[in-house]
């Protein structure tokens, strides 16, 4: 839209067609080739099952508890992980909203888990959190527990791994939203008699709400599609048999691409549902600039 308006103003168009619009073509091609086409291909494939009618894959998914339960299993991991990541990142980012050396050190440290990737983190956690790992041994040495704690190959291992890889992401995102709020607003609230808690509740939180919704959605989508850590750190046969594992098994163990596509579609639908709900709540809040004046 903007490109059209700008090109038009520059008078580069001929007979109503603006050549600057052509600049969109590479990007549009890229999106069509790498997203729209595979998506539509998968969608159609999911309606062409190996046997049965059009909806056979979907009826099979929802009538087989072994498959349909993966939605709840995944939500049970992804939602707490997202809530922890956003909930813990918010107060920390708020405390570090002023640019200090502490802020720079912490953001630097937190970028590391993002760059390392989930597999490396999962491998590390496997030894660190395992029954014979440091964590367990330290607890035993300190006399806090008597038997080794089991934090791997179960729910907790996956949750911890999602927190470790997802937290920096949520933190950096929320920090950027918080630093975008004019600190003079908090000063104004203070001179009007608002305590620090009231300033947070009445000034920061409402201005931050749209950003928090976005951070929640992105963190959730990331957590919902968990795969490596669910396999490496979890119990992929049972408690952490997430939906992506079901899709993987359908595709590469049963060689039923049609079924795998159907599971992927269901996965996308669940994610979309949650995102829509969160963004709808965001629509209620204020969404203008978070500055004090018109610039």
């Amino acid at each position, binding site marked *: 839209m903007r490109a059209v308006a700008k090109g038009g103003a520059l008078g580069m168009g001929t007979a109503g067609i603006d050549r600057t619009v052509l600049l969109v073509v590479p990007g549009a091609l890229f999106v069509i080739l790498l997203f729209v086409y595979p998506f539509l291909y998968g969608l159609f494939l999911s309606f062409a099952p190996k046997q049965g009618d059009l909806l056979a894959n979907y009826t099979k998914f929802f009538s087989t508890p072994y498959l349909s339960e993966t939605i709840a299993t995944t939500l049970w991991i992804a939602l707490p992980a997202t809530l922890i990541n956003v909930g813990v990142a918010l107060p920390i980012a708020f405390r570090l909203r002023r640019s200090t050396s502490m802020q720079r050190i912490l953001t630097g440290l937190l970028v590391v888990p993002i760059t390392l990737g989930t597999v490396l983190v999962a491998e590390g956690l496997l030894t660190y959190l395992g029954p014979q790992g440091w964590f367990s041994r330290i607890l035993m040495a300190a006399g806090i527990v008597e038997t080794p704690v089991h934090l791997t190959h179960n729910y907790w291992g996956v949750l911890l791994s999602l927190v470790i890889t997802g937290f920096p992401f949520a933190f950096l995102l929320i920090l950027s939203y918080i630093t975008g709020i004019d600190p003079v607003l908090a000063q104004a609230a203070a001179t009007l008699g608002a305590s620090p808690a009231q300033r947070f509740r009445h000034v920061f939180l409402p201005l931050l709400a749209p950003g928090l919704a976005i951070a929640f959605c992105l963190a959730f989508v990331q957590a919902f599609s968990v795969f490596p850590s669910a396999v490496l750190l979890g119990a992929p046969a049972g408690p952490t048999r997430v939906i992506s594992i079901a899709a993987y098994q359908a595709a590469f163990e049963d060689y039923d691409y049609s079924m795998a596509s159907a599971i992927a579609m269901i996965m996308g639908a669940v994610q979309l549902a949650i995102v829509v709900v969160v963004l709808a709540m965001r629509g209620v809040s204020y969404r*203008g*600039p978070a500055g004090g*004046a018109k610039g």
Partner: protein
Amino acid sequence: MLDTATPAAGGVTAPRAAGTSFGELRLDGVTREFGGIVALAGLTMTVGRGEFITLLGPSGCGKSTALNCIAGLLSLTAGSIWLDDRRIDVLRPEQRGFGMVFQNYALFPHMSVRRNVGFGLAMRRTPREEIRRRVDQVLDLVQLAAHAEKLPGQLSGGQQQRVAIARAIVVQPPLVLMDEPLSNLDAKLRLEMRTELKRIHRELGRSTIYVTHDQDEALSLADRVVMLQEGHVQQIAAPEEIYARPANLDVARFMGYRNLLALDVVRREGGWAVVGGPGIALRGLCQGEVGRRAAVAIRPDDLTLDGGGEDGIAGRVETVEYCGRDYLVDLVTEGGVTLHARSLQRVAPGDVLRCHADPERVLVYPEAPGDAGA
């Protein structure tokens, strides 16, 4: 009734006692440093009840620092602030109960005008009906009653400005602090808002401290002007006095004395001095102990090309600007110094003329001007 909800800190009474009935605000050697650099050096002054004080000075003179120290947004490096006999510099900003208007207004963008203005009252847990009544009252005062339900982003700059003022005064603070509130407005609106501020101050009689770098604003609004330069107080005086009798050459330069000349003192007659230089013979008022050399300050408005007499300054006209009422004339003296003068008649570049000044308006300072005639 006011400020009752504000909690007290560490044994210090809450601003409840302050209410509207304080006698005076006293700053005692208020000093603030930023990383070893002194932004404000030992500001000592008092603000009486209902008084309108402006802190005037060029940017970086420490005037905003002073205001933020009073508001509690900056802690002091040294010194103390007192409200009558209560020390308040140890209180947090929310415990001081002062109203503040910020340069960029700092309106809460997510709240309607009504909620913005009522914010201070809500924080004081004022009953809802009373908030409504008082907000309506103050919106009437700033003539924004029709815009009560709008968001700040939907208002013009001048309207936002008035919301900011309404928000600061609705809590009936003992002291209103304003940090260059008109600097973001265009020239015409600035004049209107200046009159508006004057009216609001007259109607409410709140003690006000107003920070500005605009001397017109300072002179027209203030009961007293505090002139600051590089963190130091230069002069505290009524507008008339600071305009006619600047305490030193720096203040004179800032107050529009554009003609600054380094001259020899020919003789002294009581409070008067006769000064001279190449083609220059002037009589002026001594400002302090004048020795053999002096710095002379004259406003362009007081240096006229009209009238006769043997004394004055001879010079050749360089440029002439028509200003409507009169002409602004730049002329160069024999000594090569450029002067700015006024003339009712049109003169032509190249003319050699003599300009004159009323001796009452010629200020003779002891020190030598750093950049005389520049």
